[in-house]
């Protein structure tokens, strides 16, 4: 008589049974639960961003269309970009950072479990705040990179820019906190024997991503602060009439903005580097090269920012410098693509849904990378910039790249996270709809862009003949939407089925497959010791075959960080500071003072809360 993994866990769990119910989720500090919270919230925002895209595509399907007013359209394209970047791709990656990094390095949790929860709550509140702007008819409408001086009070008098500004600051706090957390986790919590060069590639890429976050987000924080001062306190940082220079905003923004796109894509690279070896049944080709190319991309990513500014007339020296650095960054990127193909080469490829998406990722990312190289040349970019050619490029790398990879990761890690395998047939339907829909939507954009269609335009005249290509794109976008409906259906159908996924459904190489699906709260009954890369393959090779289903253990004698509500309280305080700042013209300083007090209150209680010191301090002062 088959018992599900969950039955087994419940039988063994004893006093360590993880509670259920709303309060347990509000106070959780378990990295796995936080990962699921990130994932569900991010997926919701992703669907919202997708809806925004579909509305945009309806408007653009006909010339001189009036389905959407210009203000609504401008809000939708701004929110679509902002949501997809900050509320979808980044937190979907965070879902995997949270759930998988501790498992892959053989740890029981992250370095700072409460800080982890704090990051999630701040993200949720920030995302809700940003979208609440729609309720006030004041959704951000200045484009996701908010160029000055359109964003000055004079030209954007409403709250739209402020929602965007404060929203990004709130989200920045979440990202920075998580950046510190995962950086320390990876450095300091690897299990015995796991040197840096034995870490799974997903952990490496995520680690590099955290460094990028830590170094890039402060820059945009300052830029947004300067904009706040311009809009609220009468300074002229970006106001020409006062001597300020709008171009300075672009420099500050893109010093953040370019590393940001690597923040968006490096975790995707990591996921692909996990999936390809498992389904090719060969190790990752060129592990060291993959590590160094990832690091080099991140480092060089800070030196290319003005390739977003080739049309601003910076002069030939600046143009040349940034053009050359941008071309240079194509080299390590190419290395990665070839290494992935080298992984497949000579393998015994098992075509399951994760592999479909992973292979499509490579194909799509190549296209995105090549159009990127075309942009790297300023004389050509003078025609391409700010047209749909650019829109095509970044969707190929962000959707064809990041989203395909995240979807691959979802199918791959779903059994581990939820104890159920997503349906293969539905997965393949999802795949084909997504591949076809994606290419039909975004490939024509290369053409319509070079034929003169600028971006961020709510309509176009019939005589420019953009209509037929736009209609093709709109058709493609609905096919894409259909694909995601199939995915949703798959999720719902699977969730209603039995929780009977084995610990290691794919014959995996890394530690997360050594523990039950889903894992018990304490992850490992005994923390593992590793002797090389691909530790689980090594173990299976020694045993001469697959491993038996692991027992979750009882968790006896294993200390888990207890739940806490202070992260949530502090998150409310922090969010409140920015909301109150935005409302300060009406509320005066009182809202800010209350919010700061709440934040201090939350943080102090958090710091003095009992029961956590053993999780951060090597010589523990024992229990307090």
């Amino acid at each position, binding site marked *: 008589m088959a018992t599900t993994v969950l039955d087994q866990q419940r039988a063994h769990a004893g006093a360590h049974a993880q509670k259920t119910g709303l309060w347990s989720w509000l106070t959780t500090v378990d990295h796995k639960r936080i990962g699921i919270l990130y994932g569900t919230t991010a997926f919701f925002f992703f669907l919202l961003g997708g809806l925004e895209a579909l509305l945009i595509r309806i408007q653009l399907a006909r010339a001189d269309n009036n389905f959407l007013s210009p203000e609504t359209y401008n809000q939708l394209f701004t929110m679509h970009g902002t949501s997809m970047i900050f509320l979808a791709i980044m937190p979907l990656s965070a879902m995997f950072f949270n759930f998988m990094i501790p498992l892959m390095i053989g740890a029981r949790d992250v370095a700072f479990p409460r800080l982890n929860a704090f990051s999630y709550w701040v993200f949720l509140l920030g995302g809700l705040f940003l979208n609440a702007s729609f309720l006030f008819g004041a959704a951000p409408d200045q484009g996701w990179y908010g160029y000055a001086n359109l964003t000055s009070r004079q030209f954007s008098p409403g709250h739209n820019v402020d929602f965007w500004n404060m929203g990004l600051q709130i989200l920045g706090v979440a990202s920075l906190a998580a950046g510190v957390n995962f950086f320390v986790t990876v450095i300091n919590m690897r299990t015995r024997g796991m040197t840096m060069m034995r870490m799974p590639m997903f952990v490496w890429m995520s680690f590099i991503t955290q460094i990028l976050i830590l170094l890039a987000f402060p820059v945009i924080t300052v830029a947004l602060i300067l904009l706040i001062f311009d809009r609220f306190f009468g300074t002229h940082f970006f106001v020409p009439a006062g001597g300020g220079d709008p171009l300075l905003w672009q420099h500050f923004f893109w010093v953040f903005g370019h590393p940001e796109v690597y923040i968006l894509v490096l975790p995707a690279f990591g996921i692909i580097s996990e999936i390809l070896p498992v389904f090719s049944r060969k190790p990752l080709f060129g592990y060291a090269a993959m590590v160094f190319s990832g690091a080099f991309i991140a480092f060089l990513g800070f030196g290319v920012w003005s390739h977003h500014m080739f049309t601003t007339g910076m002069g030939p020296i600046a143009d040349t410098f940034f053009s050359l650095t941008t071309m240079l960054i194509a080299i390590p990127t190419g290395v990665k693509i070839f290494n992935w193909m080298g992984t497949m080469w000579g393998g015994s490829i098992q075509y399951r849904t994760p592999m479909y998406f992973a292979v499509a990722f490579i194909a799509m990312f190549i296209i995105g990378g090549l159009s990127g190289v075309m942009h790297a*040349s300023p004389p050509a970019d003078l*025609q391409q910039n700010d047209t749909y050619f650019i829109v095509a490029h970044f969707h190929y790398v962000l959707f064809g790249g990041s989203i395909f990879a995240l979807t691959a990761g979802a199918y791959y890690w779903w059994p581990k996270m939820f104890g159920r395998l997503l349906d293969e047939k539905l997965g393949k339907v999802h795949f084909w709809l997504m591949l076809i829909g994606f290419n039909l939507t975004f490939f024509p954009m290369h053409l319509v862009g*070079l034929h003169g269609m600028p971006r*961020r335009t709510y309509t176009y005249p019939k005589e420019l003949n953009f209509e037929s290509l736009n209609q093709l794109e709109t058709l493609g976008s609905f096919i894409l939407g259909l694909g995601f409906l199939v995915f949703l259906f798959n999720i719902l159908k699977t969730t209603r089925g039995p929780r009977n996924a084995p610990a290691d459904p794919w014959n995996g190489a890394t530690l997360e497959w050594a523990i039950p699906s889903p894992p018990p709260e304490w992850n490992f009954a005994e923390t593992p010791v590793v002797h090389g890369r691909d530790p689980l393959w090594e173990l299976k090779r020694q045993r001469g075959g697959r491993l038996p289903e692991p027992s979750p253990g009882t968790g006896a004698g294993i200390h888990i960080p207890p739940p806490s509500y202070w992260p949530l309280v502090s998150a409310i305080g922090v969010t409140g500071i920015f909301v109150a700042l935005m409302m300060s013209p009406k509320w005066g300083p009182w809202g800010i003072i209350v919010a700061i007090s709440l934040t201090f209150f939350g943080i102090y209680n958090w710091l003095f809360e009992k029961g956590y010191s053993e999780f951060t301090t090597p010589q523990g002062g024992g229990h307090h």
Partner: protein
Amino acid sequence: MHSRNAAARLRAELVPCLCLLVLAVAGCSPERYPQTALLPLSDFARIGDHVQDQTFYWALGVFVLVEGALLYAIFRFRGRPDDPEPRQIHGNTLVEIIWTVIPALILAAIAVPTVKGIFQVNGTPEGNLLEVEVVGHQWWWEFRYPQYGIVTANELVIPAGRTVHFKENSVDVIHSWWPPRFAGKRDVFPGRETRIWFKADSTGLYPGQCAEFCGIQHARMAFHVRSETPEAFEAWAAHMQTLGAPKPAAAPAPAGTDSLRTASSGANVQQESQADPLFAQGETLFRNKGCIGCHSLQAKGAPTALIGPNLANVGSRAYIAAGWLKNTDENLEAWIQNPQALKKGVLMPNLGVKPDEAKALRAYLRAHK
């Protein structure tokens, strides 16, 4: 099962390829697209086009090779679950070096024409230049000709075969001036001058558009370039210089004011028009409705810093409302009556102009060619 899998994959890999082919064919007739960047009509545009061609062909070559290799790997190395474990290769230093060096060489090959092109497009043109000042406004384009002392809006007239040197700026936010047939785009800034130049190959009317998001009506901030023969251009410039030169009046008007009387009774408006009763009515309305506050009818000596486009030759322009609404009587009247309905958020308010008044104003403006 195994071959069905492979066949399904083959079929479906082909589908996107076919889509791309169809689109490539559809897109590869750039003549269909009046605003295409792929049919350069000037020396400047050819610089960028040449560089883009080179990067494109390299990219195409890499695409075919790499995607081809990927497709090959997808089919060649498919396995069954019970297949033996393949050879566990961890890397190959020589191969890795080769596929690092070759892309570097390709990039170097692209870099050379790129850097050359950068210096060419950033160079200062020489010769008998026509100087034009491009000024971006929310949401229309002003063109000034300092050598002639004239100004116009939304329809730029230039001589083919002569290099035009553009100095650009904005009065409000960042815009981007983009005439694709003649040049890539150059952003225009408040408080900072940017430059571009080109020499048009031939004559004709060609559209362009703002290419930097600048607010609610960014999408409707278009313009046209009317490239004329050098003789036709000189004739046009000479004609524009007569538009609005103040006639001596009883009391001398203060410098810079637009004396309505002189503007309409100058040599710019034909005699017949002046006799038309609609014209007279329109002339009065232009003043009484307040149009005069934002628009000048003087091409020469026009006051600067007006909110609205110069209308000295609006009657003969191909388009109105900044390059996208055909300049028919019907459109012009509709615009005058309710600009907000056609271009919501535009800085021209609804002035409560009645249909018959609009007719008169239209006739008045139509006479200003």
